[in-house]
Structures are given as structure tokens and as C-alpha cells.
């Protein structure tokens, strides 16, 4: 029941995001089709102009356009790009694999970095070195990711020849783009992870387990890592938004042909249908991932079931 209600809420949020983005974008003055039609060198007659505008549905009031657009979207038709005339679904579809590869790799890297920082924070204690490790997430979060990306390209691609610039979808190139994206994201995961580890370490049962002579790695895995995983998984859902938003700049810097680049192009050419689809897709991914995490977490940890239902 609760699962069903949550799915319903998620769908509602995505639908509302669709409407909101549509209304915001309706404020853009002009559109690429009209600009093209009004070009005197194109030499369209008034009748032809009207015909083409009505083909794109640009002659109708905004609210009518919205209703038509929702109706089409429900049937799986996302419309056609105003600047390239290609179907929006294929424009977006072609870009998804690139962004997916980037974001997934970045998430893995971010988790790895957070893991390292987490362990280091515990093993180094609260001394000077430990303090340094604990402040790293803030440093990562404060560094603009375009700076990271530019420096990585300059050092690893140009100076060391470690990855291909002209073919940004290769494994090496993707790895470095993902690292760029992962650094600020890892900081957010690390902050939560470290806090959780701190709480767990302070608990007695860790020490008890150790003094009982259990193998250290097992102690770490069972008594430290597992309890800290829950908040960490939750925050992973939240950083999905960062991964998608950050891909805009990362893809630009690395020349990748993903969703971020599609958004960039759509923005400069005022290609509303494409922009709309890309933004709503991002929102849907964010909502979807967090929904899944919400539903799955209680299964992982029985303690979570009761309070969740109560709220």
C-alpha cells in the first residue's frame, strides 16, 4: 500500500515537473522556427509561414500547447526538435548511453573516494592528519568542477597522453570525465559516511567485538561498515541530481555527446521541446532512483520499517 502511494507521488511529481518546465520555457521570447521563417532571404509567403507555424503548434495559446504537449507525451510522443526537425525522443535517446556511462562511472568513483576518506578518517583519528582528511570533502565540494576537468585534461591528456581527446567515449576518456564529476559528489557522500562511521565507532559493541578477538576485517565489515551503509545509500540517491546537473559542464569540457550537450545545444538554439524532455527526464531519473531506494532500504534493514510507516 505504502509502496503504491509512493509510486503515485513520484508520478505526480514528474507530471508537475513537466508542467512547470513547460510554463517556465513558455516565457522565452521567440523561437527558432519563427526566426527562420522571418528571415527575408528564406522568402516564405504569409500562408506558408502560418502553415509551418501551425505544423509545430506555435500558433496556439500557451495553455492549449501545454495540453496538446501533455497529450502527446502520454502517448509517448515527445514532439520534434525545433532546430533540427529530428524527433525529440531519438535526439535524447542517442545521448543517453554517453551520460549513463559517465554518471555510473562517476558514482562508482565517488563511492570509492568516499570509502577511502571514511576509512582514513577513522584510522587517522582526530589528530592533525585526521583533521586534514575530514576537511577534504569540504575542499572537494568547494572546487569548481570545470577547474578540475580542465586541469585533468591538460595534465593527463595533453602532457601525459593518458587518454584520447578526439574520441571522448573511450574508457580512458570516460574515466577522467567521471573523475571530474565524481570529486564534488564524493564529498557529499563522504560527509554523510564519515558522520555515520563516527557514530558507530563510538558505540561499545565495536570494542567488545575487537576485544573478543574477532578478525579485524570482519569487525570492520560487520560492525562499522554495515550500520553506516544506510545513510550512505540514502545520500547516493540524492546525489543523482548532482551527477545529472554536473554532467552539463563535464560533458562540455570533455566534448562528450551526452544529455548535457543536448541541453546546451537546445539552450543556445531555444529548442524548447528538446530542453523540456531533457529536464523532465532528469527529474524522472532522480525521482525514480530515490523511489527505489526508499522502497528497498526497509527491506535491507528491518529497523527502518516501523518508523517509515509511521511517518
Amino acid at each position: 500500500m505504502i509502496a503504491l502511494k509512493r509510486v503515485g507521488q513520484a508520478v505526480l511529481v514528474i507530471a508537475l515537473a513537466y508542467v512547470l518546465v513547460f510554463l517556465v520555457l513558455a516565457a522565452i521570447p521567440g523561437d527558432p522556427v519563427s526566426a527562420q521563417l522571418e528571415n527575408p532571404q528564406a522568402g516564405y509567403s504569409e500562408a506558408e509561414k502560418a502553415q509551418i507555424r501551425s505544423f509545430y503548434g506555435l500558433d496556439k495559446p500557451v495553455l492549449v500547447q501545454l495540453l496538446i504537449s501533455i497529450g502527446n507525451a502520454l502517448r509517448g510522443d515527445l514532439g520534434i526538435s525545433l532546430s533540427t526537425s529530428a524527433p525529440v525522443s531519438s535526439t535524447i535517446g542517442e545521448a543517453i548511453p554517453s551520460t549513463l556511462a559517465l554518471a555510473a562511472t562517476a558514482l562508482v568513483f565517488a563511492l570509492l573516494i568516499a570509502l577511502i576518506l571514511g576509512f582514513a578518517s577513522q584510522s587517522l583519528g582526530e589528530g592533525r592528519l585526521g583533521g586534514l582528511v575530514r576537511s577534504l570533502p569540504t575542499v572537494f565540494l568547494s572546487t569548481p568542477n570545470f577547474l578540475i576537468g580542465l586541469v585533468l585534461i591538460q595534465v593527463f591528456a595533453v602532457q601525459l597522453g593518458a587518454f584520447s581527446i578526439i574520441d571522448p567515449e573511450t574508457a580512458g576518456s570516460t574515466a577522467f570525465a567521471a573523475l571530474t564529476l565524481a570529486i564534488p559528489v564524493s564529498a557529499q557522500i563522504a560527509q554523510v559516511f564519515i558522520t555515520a562511521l563516527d557514530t558507530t565507532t563510538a558505540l561499545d559493541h565495536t570494542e567488545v567485538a575487537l576485544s573478543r578477538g574477532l578478525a579485524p576485517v570482519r569487525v570492520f565489515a560487520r560492525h562499522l561498515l554495515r550500520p553506516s551503509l544506510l545513510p550512505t545509500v540514502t545520500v547516493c540517491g540524492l546525489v543523482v541530481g548532482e551527477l545529472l546537473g554536473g554532467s552539463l559542464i563535464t560533458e562540455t569540457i570533455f566534448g562528450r555527446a551526452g544529455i548535457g550537450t543536448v541541453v546546451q545545444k537546445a539552450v543556445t538554439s531555444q529548442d524548447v521541446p528538446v530542453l523540456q524532455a531533457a529536464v523532465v527526464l532528469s527529474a524522472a531519473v532522480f525521482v525514480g532512483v530515490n523511489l527505489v531506494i526508499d522502497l528497498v532500504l526497509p527491506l535491507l534493514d528491518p529497523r527502518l520499517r516501523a518508523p517509515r510507516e509511521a511517518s
Partner: protein
Amino acid sequence: MTRPVGPAPVGPAPVGPAPVGPDVTRRRLLRGIGAGALGLAALPLAGCALEAAHAAGGSETPEDELTFLISNLDGGWVPSKSAISSYEANVWQQLTDKLVHTDEKGTITPWIAESWDVASDSTEFTLHLKDGVTFSDGTALDADAVVANLDVWAKGRPDAGIAKVGLFPGSTYDGAEALDERTVRVRFTAPSLSFLPTLGYHGCLLLSPDSVARSLGEQSDLAHQIGSGPFVLDSWAASDHVTLVRREDYDWAPPVLGRSGAAALRRITFKVLPDDTLRASAARAHQSDVSYNVNPQVLDSFTEAGFTIEVPRYLGFTHGFRVRTNVAPFDDVRVRRAITRGIDRDEILRTVFTKDWESATSWLQSSVPEAEDHSDLFPFDPDSAARLLDDAGWTGRSEDGYRTKDGTELAFTLYPTPYLTGSVPEAELISQQLGRLGIRVATQKIDVAAYSGKVEDNPDQGLAEVTRSFVDAGTVAGVITADGEDWFALGDSDERLADLAGRVAGTADRTERAGVIDELSQHVLEQAYFIPLEQNVQRIYVQTPELSGITVNAVAIPSYHAATKTGSGADGTGADA
């Protein structure tokens, strides 16, 4: 991911079994695991880098293959449409042949047309075609095929939405006929001196009659464009790449290229990389053989690093501003002249460009045979520029120190052309220079998509940058007259200009026409209808030093038929030489 790097991964942690207090144990345990984890996690990162390094190192282009980086190939493949694009032309030149070859000086030499006869009044031309030429689909490149191409260049196919070739003298074109399999006669209703040189223009490319007859939609697919050139299409994907492979039975290269038989290179890959910085970085990392259009301000560092920089100049107009004289404040000749004199062209050359660039000497490139040096008509002279502005009444000063007249500030906006690398810093510098005169010049970066609406076709934009090539100076008549492009927005108001333009178009004798063109140039410069900046270099090729044997044509587009990278068949080791 194979080579272990960094500290040993976590094993059974080296924690002593000695019974110590729980706190110490925990500390040590955690420390050990932490260090191990650090090393463990460093592995994939380092591994990926190493793997990638191997991949990059191992995939260097073979010596008979060429990688060409270009910012975009999105202009479409309809020949008449892409003809104006300086990007696609790089591909077309390898895929197709032309009737004649026109070189950087405007000299015409044979190609598919072995020879030609010209009637004394320049209204009738007879072309004699080379024997045995075929398109890559096997059909013959004969007189009928040439006629089919000529008709489309001259008139286009308006019913099918296919435009004519802009520079072709289509308005006087009377028709072409095949006299026999290898002879074509072309007739014009008026003297058309520009006909022959235009045949070497990158728009006039020979395609199979089947390709020429296809619909607009089909023509947008490069795979449907069958040429007779030294390379044929292997594969292409929009916004990504075009790959060409050598045509083994090719044997009709123009003699000026200095190579007969098939091309020396086996494969050319045009890779699209829109980002200027990435293109420069890729070139620097030796990931390409040729990188097209790199910011001129970066070029010196490439020269130092041992790269070859080619900056071929086309025949055409210099880089400069055409002025819409009906837009204030440019409706006053004194303001136009003041701007012309307020621009320090030497400073622009020193700052934005390299020593390969030269100052403009007219509004025509100095390589145009008809061009004379008129640089005395637009000297850098800030004092006289200031006097001109004073005379024109711009004597007030605004709060920020800019000139005003009747409460209006002397100000305008420049949109640097996206068709010229370096135009943005150049506009910024011009803004600085004119700022010293008291003119406020804003600069706004703009992309290809928005450029025509904001600048070229916007009647309210006073200054529009010109980057226009031509193969025959007769073209100038068409761009300045009221029934042409009316560059200066004069309509019929300047009778002298209209008269000179008419005489340029109608003269049958080349020497006589040269005199008229010079008179016209002086008039345009005196009236400051055109504000020249520098000799236009629209195509910048950053090349690996190993590459040689490249010939460029009148519009500065390279042919790679005879090109080699050191060691690959430079001396006839190629398969068919």
C-alpha cells in the same frame, strides 16, 4: 587494470596477536585498514589511466592515414547549400573533381576540362573534356553529365528546393549543350568573364547525373553524393565523422597537384570536435594530423612545439566591416571615416594574430589580380579621427567619458563573426581602440545559428563583418548593388557606385574591367562604406610537420590527393604511382 600500483592491498591485516588494550587495538586495526583501503582504491584509478595510456599510445594513426579535426560538418550535404560553408568544402575537395583548377592567384589550369575555347565577346565557351573519367559508381563523366551539372549550378532546381550556386553567373546563363561525348558548349546572354574561374570554385563540384537529380532530402545524405574524386565515402555520421578511402582507379588529378594515379593516402578521417580548446589540446597531444581553425593567439605556442601552421588566403574580400549607411550613426560619412581611422590595424595584427597575417591594403585581398594598394585611404590616425567626430557634432561627453550628441551616446554593438577564429578578441581590441576615441563599443559573442538573424539579415545592425571569398573580382558588382545584396544599404542613392558596378558586370575585356574595379574600390574606401581590417585568413591548418604535398585552391581549400606523411610513398612507393 592489471598492474598493481601503490601499497599492497588489504590482506589479513598485520595486527599483532599480542593482547593489548581494546583502544590501542582499534586504533591500529583502523589505521592498517585505512592505509590498505587507500591503496586499494587508488588501483582502479591508476589502472584506468595506465590502460588508457596504452590505448592512446598504441593507436597512433598509420602513416598512410590522415586524421583531420574540424569544428563542425553540420551545414548539410546539399552541394549548393554547403558550398558557402568553409567546413564541408574540405570534404568535398577530396570526394569530387572540378572542371578546372583555380589557384591562389586566380590562375586557371586544366582538370576535367583539358582545354577550352572562348569566344571574343566572352559569351560563348567550349570545354573539351578528359577521356575515360568515371564517377565512383561507374557511370561516365561525359558531356551529358557536365551539362546536367552546369544547369543546376546556374539555375538550381527551385521546384525541388535546391538553390543555384551563389557565385555562378546564372543570370546571364543561356544554356549548355553536349556537342559530342567530350565537348560541351556553354552560352551566355552577356559577357561573363567570371565563368571560367568560377568553375574552380568549391561550389561547382561535379556529381553523377543520378546524384544531381535526387530530391533535397536524399541529397542531405552524403552517401547519395557520387563524385569522381580521388577518395570515396567509407562511412559518415552527422556531428561525428566522415571517413573517406582512396579510390584505386583514380587517374585524372589536375596536373598542378604533381601526382598522377591514385592518392598517396589510403584513408582520411574527418572527426568533428566542436570545442575550439579541445581541438587545440588534441592537436597538442598529437592525436590528429590536421586541426582546422585553432585560435590564432595559440598558434605561436604550436610553432614553438614544432607544428606546421598553414594559413592559406583565399581570393575574395578582406576581413572588415561593411557599413549599412542608413543606420545611425553610420549615416554620417565623418563617423564612418573616424572609425576607419581609429582602428590600429598593426596593433590588431600584433595582438590577435601571428606574423603570418598581413594588414589589408584595400577591401579586396591583395592576391586578387585586380587589387591595388589603397592603404593610404584608411590610415590609423586617431587625431584626425577625433577631429572628424568633433566636426560631426559628437562633442559632448557622457558620465563614463563617451562622446554624445544631443544627449545620445556614440555607441554600437559588435557581434564577432562565428565564421572566423579570432574574431572575438579582435572585436574586444577594436572596442578598446575606439573607446579611446570616445566611442562605446559593446561586444557580444554569438553562434552560427543566431548570426544571420542578428547581423547579416538585420537591417538595424550597422556594422556587419565580411568574410567572403570569390574566384573572380566581377563578383563585387553583385554584392553592392540595390538588386544584388545591397551591402551598404544605399539603394540607388549613390549613382556613381551603381554606374561603376554596372560597368564591372558588363565589360568583356579583363584589362578594361580591372580599371573599373579599381575606381570602384577607391570610391568604396573613400566613402568608408567598407572598413577593412586585415587580409582574411579564414582557414587555419595546424599540421604535423610530417605532412607534405598539399595544394590549395583559390578559396584556400586543400587537396590531399598528393599529400603524404613522411615515409608513405612520397617517391612513388604508392601503389599506383
